[in-house]
């Protein structure tokens, strides 16, 4: 692969990103013009605009033939970047639908603008092929997120959430930047693939390679909320506006994993740094165990989902550790399944707390009598998280465990299995409130606005689709994974 000079087709490759900026500008402009009572439509505009951008991406940015580096090696156009761009935009569109009825959040243009900028950052994270670009992309993703997490300025918890996220994010990203600078110091290169070449050819001392990898993993670990950089997640999710918590736990985490995959597979190949596999295996075990065990005692559904999303990061890391074609495919598949499922789970929480005003798990008592459809959607989402067929989570888990068994990490597969049983326990406990317990509010109506109904139906349908007709999704994941090598 050579770093070519500029060609006009390169603009087409980043047209989706350009359109995202245009859309953000449009929303800012419209926000200034529209009357307050029509501001709710900003959410629809965002979602619709993202849909258009997705269609445009399919038309112009779909990777053809060979993967290539564009813009002087800053970006890489391949299936990984393309598919995840689409996924991030999908997640953003769904989040916009969830946010538009939220008081104090959904009626403000800046909310959607910040979200779009963050999505742009994620898109760039997925395609960045240069550590400078990568760092900029990560910051472009994170900074709007700091603001969004603290968006409800009158709410102490939200403010705390935003500030906590900022502190953790800033601290870890400086450490990561230090790791990047070490790599640059060793190799004199910033392009990931050039760095990989020099690492391969020049045989640096192991301590230098592992040292810089560790520093970088601090930043990545924060993004994917892996142990021991997971502490922020429950507090931030709990305080942040719920749609943003959902966005953080899905799109932002997926973007983190994409970067992990790209950097680990390209630079730190097993021949250069064989030790990280064992290291990451331990991180994976700790991440899922800590997530699952702490989720057991949660009373607040957002905190429960936060710990559950930590646990899922652990499962995904199993696939990363089992580094192989199947391992990476399983990671990508898991990310797709997890993104849809967790968006649905958070979506239900948004929908419910809009009407009921509580995020306590006990508030969900009697939901199945109150609103059978919402209860059913919740069951689908939670059982998919627990890994039950015929839902997406089941197949995803099987692929990850299969990847571990294939490379001989049977003990890791068993740890994953035991963890999913702990997981099943707390997901079922939530469903117990929904289906079994009664409450005094059972007869009070629970109205769901159209945006929630659409978003939830799409997600539930997606969960079942990925879980039953998993063939095409697996093929796509294979294609994405092979673009890493």
């Amino acid at each position, binding site marked *: 692969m050579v770093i070519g000079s500029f060609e006009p087709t390169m603009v087409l490759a980043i047209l989706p990103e350009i359109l995202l900026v245009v859309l953000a500008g449009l929303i800012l402009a419209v926000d200034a013009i529209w009357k307050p009572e029509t501001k709710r439509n900003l959410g629809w505009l965002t979602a619709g605009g993202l849909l258009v951008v997705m269609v445009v991406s399919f038309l112009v940015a779909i990777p053809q033939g060979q993967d290539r580096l564009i813009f002087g090696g800053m970006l890489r156009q391949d299936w990984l970047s393309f598919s995840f761009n689409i996924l991030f935009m999908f997640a953003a569109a769904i989040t916009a639908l969830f946010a538009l009825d939220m008081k104090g959040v959904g009626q403000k243009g800046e909310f959607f603008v910040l979200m779009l900028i963050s999505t742009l950052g994620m898109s760039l994270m997925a395609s960045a092929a240069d550590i400078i670009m990568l760092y900029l992309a990560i910051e472009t993703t994170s900074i709007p997120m700091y603001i969004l997490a603290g968006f409800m300025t009158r709410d102490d918890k939200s403010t705390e959430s935003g500030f906590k996220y900022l502190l953790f994010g800033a601290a870890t990203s400086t450490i990561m930047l230090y790791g990047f600078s070490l790599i640059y110091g060793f190799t004199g290169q910033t392009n990931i693939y050039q760095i990989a070449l020099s690492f391969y050819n020049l045989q640096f001392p192991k301590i230098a390679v592992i040292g810089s990898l560790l520093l970088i993993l601090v930043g990545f670990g924060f993004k994917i909320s892996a142990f021991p950089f997971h502490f922020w997640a429950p507090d931030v999710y709990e305080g942040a506006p719920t749609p943003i918590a959902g966005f953080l736990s899905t799109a932002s985490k997926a973007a983190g994993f994409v970067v992990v995959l790209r950097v680990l597979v390209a630079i730190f190949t097993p021949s250069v740094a064989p030790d990280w596999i064992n290291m990451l295996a331990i991180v994976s075990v700790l991440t899922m165990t800590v997530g699952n065990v702490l989720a057991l005692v949660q009373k607040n559904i957002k905190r429960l989902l936060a710990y559950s999303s930590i646990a899922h990061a652990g499962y995904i890391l199993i696939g990363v550790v089992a580094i192989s074609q199947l391992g990476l495919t399983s990671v990508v598949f898991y990310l797709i399944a997890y993104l849809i499922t967790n968006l649905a789970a958070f979506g239900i929480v948004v929908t419910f707390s809009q009407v009921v005003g509580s995020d306590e798990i006990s508030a969900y008592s009697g939901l*199945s*009598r109150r609103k*059978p459809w919402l209860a*059913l959607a919740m*069951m689908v989402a939670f*059982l998919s998280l627990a890994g*039950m*067929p*015929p839902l997406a989570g*089941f197949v995803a888990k*099987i692929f990850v*465990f*299969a990847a571990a*068994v*294939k490379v001989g990490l*049977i003990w890791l*597969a*068993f740890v994953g*299995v*035991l963890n*999913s*049983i702990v997981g*099943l*326990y707390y997901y*079922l406990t939530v*469903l*117990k409130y929904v*289906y*079994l317990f009664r409450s005094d509010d059972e007869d009070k109506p629970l109205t769901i606005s159209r945006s929630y109904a659409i978003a939830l139906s799409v997600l539930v349908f997606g969960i079942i689709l990925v879980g039953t007709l*998993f*063939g095409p999704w*697996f*093929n796509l994941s*294979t294609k994405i994974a092979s673009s890493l090598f």
Partner: protein
Amino acid sequence: MRFPILSVIVLTPIIAGMLILLIPSDRKNVVRYVALAAATIALLLSAWVYFSYDISISGYQFIEKYNWLPQLGISYYVGVDGMNAPLVLLTGVVMFTGVLISWGIDDRPREFFAFLFILASGVFGVFVAQDLFMLFFFYEIAVFPMYLLISIWGWIKTREYAAMKLTLYLFIGSLVSLVGGLAMYFGSGKNTFDMIQLSQANFSESFQIFWFPFVFFGFAVLGGIFPFHNWSPDGHVAAPTAVSMFHAGVLMKLGAFAALRVGIMLLPVGAQHWRWLILILALVNVVYGAFIAMVQTDFKYVIGFSSVSHMGLVMLGFATLNKDGLIGSGIQMFSHGVMTALFFAVVGMVYDRAHTREIGELGGFSKKMPWVAVAFIIGGLVSMGMPGLSGFVAEFPIFMGVWQVKPIIAIIASISIVITASYIIRIIGRVFFGPISEEFDHHVGDVTIKDKVALTILCVIMITVGVYPSIMSNLVSSGVDRILSLFGGA
């Protein structure tokens, strides 16, 4: 193209379940009739499969195979042979009678039938699966609705505890087997989950000996094998009637069948290596289960532990690895399924009217519900292994098979027959005969016509198999020959 009969059987319940969810929640009778219609279709089709299976050709029939994920060798692959055809019929029967008996459920019947039917689809899917991945897929589908069914509609005192215990036990078991299944998939090097091909993979001896316990015991948890049987009586007792019927009647067979299909048939050398352990554990099941059943004072717990005891016989038959034992197990799975469904139906009918299951408080119910009493007595005789009924046809070959392996085990196991007789006769005497208390005399009435139909179907099946055993034994025998051929001899 041929009519895809097995797929229709597998998918009818789940599609009916989805349709039922679309019915407005206040139209409870519509829900019930749709459920009955779906159950009738499933019953008729499964009976059709059972009776049109051609024994002279043997092997897998009604095969359908579609690629699901060819890159990993996953396919949707179904077929029946002599071993699973009776189990498909059993599921159809239990589903049909279960719907009839659940007619009176008034709390969210829509959700009840929908979950029950998802469960039924899972069960059908496991029984007919010829693909290991598909087997796991449907196995899990069969497990999780159980949680909701028990915890929502179950017995209020223990339902939360029992439902969670059951789900966690079964989930642990299935996932442990899953890892074993994945090891087989990668170990075979054939890149296929097709179990017929995997059975020819010639796994090395050490591989089989290492993985067999994971796979076999993982599934056998659902078969109720000692010491992993603990979930089962609690689960049975807490579950609502139809779910107990499904649970003891069909789901436990699901575990036993999967242990046979995946454990013994794919890892035959491992099975031979570990058979002594299975023999001993199953023996404990048989004798210990019977003794515990004897000392229970709760009617439903008696039946719950008797299931543990009878499922032990199935496992015992498996462990013989000879023709008699396996034929016996095959028939016992069917016979016990029908019998225990009948028992739980009876328990449910008694409890619904008396609101107690304490054997000491009941009495004289034969006056109030003669049909139920007669049905229970027939079931009781089956359970004791009385000749002329299906229980004898099943248990006698098992004891013959065990005798060929180790006579002492057969002798010890046969104690259970005596104990079974003692607890069954005690129930018949205490619950159905003797004086009826004042309280029950007034408000206990007879059962509905639907209940009677369900009981009659179950009794007729047990008697038919009993007096005309070749209706089933020839079929099962053809399936057993195929299993034995994996052990290098017929």
